[in-house]
């Protein structure tokens, strides 16, 4: 009699393979004149002392800038947007961020960013940064601490 656990694992492997194909088909290819916006949502608090390794080189920067003892990456999203195209990023606690690349020269990127919580406009800003650059937007409460968004543009 076949081992049900083995049969279950084989089925999971086959399904995972087809799901991977599905995912790859859904990935948009990079085009010219696009800006890739990467948004990391970080939960900063004084609960514990762990600092998420996924934060990479900016761990030390976060420790220098804020007095929180713990930083955990909750989510990270990435969108490739053409100039003028608006992308929406869902964030924790019913918040969302809409970002639109604006015309810019050379290796500069200009972004129009709107951060909302339901119908409330928390922030509207226009930023200019270099490709590969980064800016932080923080302060909205989350659980026992705050949310800090790490926004970078490539």
């Amino acid at each position: 009699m076949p081992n049900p656990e083995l049969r279950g694992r084989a089925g999971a492997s086959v399904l995972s393979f087809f799901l991977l194909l599905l995912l790859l088909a859904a990935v948009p290819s990079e085009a010219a004149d696009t800006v890739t916006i990467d948004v990391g949502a970080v939960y900063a608090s004084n609960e514990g002392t762990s600092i998420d390794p996924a934060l990479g080189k900016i761990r030390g920067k976060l420790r220098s800038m804020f007095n929180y003892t713990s930083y955990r990456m909750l989510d990270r999203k990435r969108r490739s947007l053409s100039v003028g195209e608006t992308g929406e990023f869902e964030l924790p606690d019913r918040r969302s961020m809409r970002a639109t690349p604006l015309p810019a020269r050379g290796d500069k990127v200009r972004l129009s960013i709107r951060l909302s919580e339901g119908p409330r406009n928390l922030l509207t800003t226009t930023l200019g940064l270099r490709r590969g650059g980064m800016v932080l937007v923080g302060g909205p409460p989350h659980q026992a601490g705050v949310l800090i968004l790490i926004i970078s543009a490539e």
Partner: protein
Amino acid sequence: MDCGTALGKINAKADGLLPRQEEAELADHLAGCPACAADDAAISATGPVLRALTGIRAMRNAPALDAMWTRVRAGIDEGRDTRRRSSWLARWSWIPAAVVIALLALVFSPSRTDRPPFHPSSFEVAVEDVESDTATVALVDKGEDLPTVIWIIEDAKS
């Protein structure tokens, strides 16, 4: 003794593998050869200078190093929770979980936290305008080595 042989003996001395008699012969050569003497000084100094370099980093990171067991213990506890959840899910939930993943993959763009860590190449930012209907916004710029922060202080909240 030629300089090529001397360099070999200098390395052997640094490794603690040079017999005493050969040490004396080497010392004679070094006394009359400034180039080999410079090599000997540099090779002998490698260890102490590297340890000094490490010492600087250790002093700077001392508070975090003191808290290492706290961090490790937190990581161990987190690992235990993950393993408990994984074992339950692996046994009972792979079918509905697979269906949910398929639907999410179709509806949303890929979203992962396991990409390579952040590596910003610049913190240079120009804030052209900023406004809020429901909060006070502060701009914090602590210099070019730190990212600019736009800090939102929601009205009626601290």
